[in-house]
């Protein structure tokens, strides 16, 4: 029971957090129309995933493992690119905005709202099919009554949504200047986690070198370090149980898994090392410039 609940929580958390921040963004900018569009994007992703999941579970055709991982992996990386773009675009737009204009320009920040809605869609859709396959599988449970398994899985996702909702509510209380900075940082951190997850998917499918691909023949030690057993960066699953609550929370927020490959760690760290300082420096510089313009 708990195990099923935690899977639901794990699969739902990353998406719920990103969507929570997106909704806080448009909420802060007083754009209920954009919020509606985000919900539309999220709903479309959920329906699509559930529909596809049902077809693949009960229909005539299933999805090959490689295809499933490739879809999840590439959508994850697309989500990262879109979130990164959004964070920096909004930073650029919000720079040098003086007092009374702020309200108007802030409204322009999210444009027509469709771009943000699209990010909501991709964030949910990227792991949506796997989650839907998992949920439909619980309805075929034998030990516990199918309905119980199904409801437990859904409950896990609902808890993830509640956490996303709490983040949203909390963020709304933060003062505007600080708000943009911290939501930006949060989104970048979440995106780094999604990136690591996407890399892992592509490694499992054998599209990227990793623990699931044997080193090419005659490869030197430098190359061989990225293949096979040597490709793992660390494994602390004896300390943090991968099926436990702590692992689920760490994975859903930071993208940390008890067992990660070198490529995942490199991508995760590389992403944050590049984006975070760049974002913070620009964010503070922008604030400084704005202050100087004021008489």
């Amino acid at each position: 029971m708990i195990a099923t609940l935690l899977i639901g929580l794990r699969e739902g958390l990353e998406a719920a957090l990103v969507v929570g921040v997106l909704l806080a963004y448009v909420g802060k900018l007083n754009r209920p129309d954009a919020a509606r569009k985000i919900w539309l994007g999220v709903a479309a992703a959920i329906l699509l995933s559930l529909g596809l999941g049902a077809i693949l579970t009960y229909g005539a055709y299933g999805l090959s493992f490689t295809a499933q991982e490739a879809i999840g992996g590439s959508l994850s990386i697309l989500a990262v690119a879109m979130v990164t773009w959004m964070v920096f675009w909004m930073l650029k737009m919000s720079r040098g905005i003086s007092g009374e204009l702020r309200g108007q320009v802030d409204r322009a920040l999210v444009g027509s709202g469709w771009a943000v809605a699209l990010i909501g869609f991709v964030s949910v859709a990227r792991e949506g099919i796997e989650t839907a396959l998992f949920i439909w599988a619980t309805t075929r449970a034998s030990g516990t009554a199918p309905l119980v398994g199904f409801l437990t899985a859904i409950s896990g996702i609902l808890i993830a949504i509640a956490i996303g909702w709490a983040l949203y509510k909390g963020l709304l209380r933060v003062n505007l200047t600080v708000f943009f900075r911290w939501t930006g940082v949060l989104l970048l951190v979440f995106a780094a986690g999604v990136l690591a997850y996407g890399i892992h998917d592509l490694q499992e499918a054998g599209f990227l070198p990793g623990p699931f691909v044997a080193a090419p023949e005659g490869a030197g030690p430098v190359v061989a370090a990225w293949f096979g057993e040597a490709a793992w960066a660390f494994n602390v699953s004896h300390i943090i149980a991968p099926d436990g609550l702590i692992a689920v929370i760490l994975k859903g927020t930071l993208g940390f898994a008890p067992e990660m490959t070198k490529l995942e760690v490199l991508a995760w760290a590389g992403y944050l090392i590049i984006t975070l300082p760049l974002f913070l420096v620009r964010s503070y510089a922008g604030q400084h410039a704005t202050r100087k313009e004021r008489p």
Partner: protein
Amino acid sequence: MTSSNLRNAAAVAALSATALLLAGCVPNGAPNATSIAVTANDEGCEVANATGTSGTLTFTVQNDGTKVTEFYLLGSNKLTIVGEVENIAPGTSRDLTVQVGPGEYFTACKPGMIGAGVGHAAFTVSGDAVATTPEEDAVVAQYVAYVKTQTEELVPRVGEFVAAYKAGNDDEARALFPIARINYERIEPTAEQFGDLDPKIDYRKPGAIEEGLPFTGFHRIEQDLWLDRAIENYSQPEKNHYPKDDLVALTPEERATIGDQLVADISELNDKVRSPDFTLTLADITEGAKGLLDEVAAPDGKLPGEENEFAHTDLYDFTANVEGAQVAFDTVRALLVANGGEELATELDARFVDMLDTLAGYGSYEAGFVSYDTVDATKRNELAAKLTALSEPMSRLTAGVVGS
């Protein structure tokens, strides 16, 4: 990145995801699929059979433990993931459907999702090599669809050509002759699969005589439309031994008979190609591509100017043969690259461009190609050199696509 760029990027991503979905489909419970029960608990898992038959295998993994588990089918190196199903909650059952060829595999479970997997057990798949993967089926289906579009275009073009010929509009018929052949020349190896059709449609006079077949089809009409040249041609010493009794103008009735037969044969070809039973193998496609180029270079082909020995429209056929080979190659290109044939693919890309550019220097279907008898030996040698440069890598295509 603007929001419209973003939308485009998303559209591309959605399209690729859809393509992957389609290409990555494996049949659930296909009639010949074998279902293998796997019982998992907190210590590992037990696979009911240690052997299977190649094709579609379904592992039904029942988790009787208290921890979430994962089930893996690994390659013989115990690293490569052939198939995986995650998130098997306690008390639930999930299926892993995979397409496997004969070979040695390992099965493993990961109770609690920890470690490199426990319960590694050897799993042997026997039987024939998996005939095709879904990706290969998709490639074949794409090429078959191409063949169908070509025969569909061929029917009205031949109809128009024959109508002009039967009506005695010889100038019009002469102009339509090379155009009516384009679609046929693009897919000729496929037509040759239907034993008796190609001889009736496209045999040249020497070929028909050699095999004791009546001389019919495109080239019979060609001879009638360019009768002066035919008489001149067959008076040359090297062709003097061929019978000359058919070197007379056909009567309108004879024209109708020959013309109607060509239309009927083409329409039969179209029907056969459109039949649900019609299919090809990957090797048919790659060998066909090579065959198209061989057609050009053959002693009675386009390069020596023998194919259309009276009309001298060989450059049309030449271009169509190369185009047909290029489409066949493009269709299998992704498979070639996936098999590590990136270099060969790049080389062929360049050779095709070079060949078609050179041909374009002589004209186009729309504007017309120069008569082949005006192409001198030097120029023919240049064409031959380009063709050889293309044919050589082409002869490695089948091995690069199929032989893996």
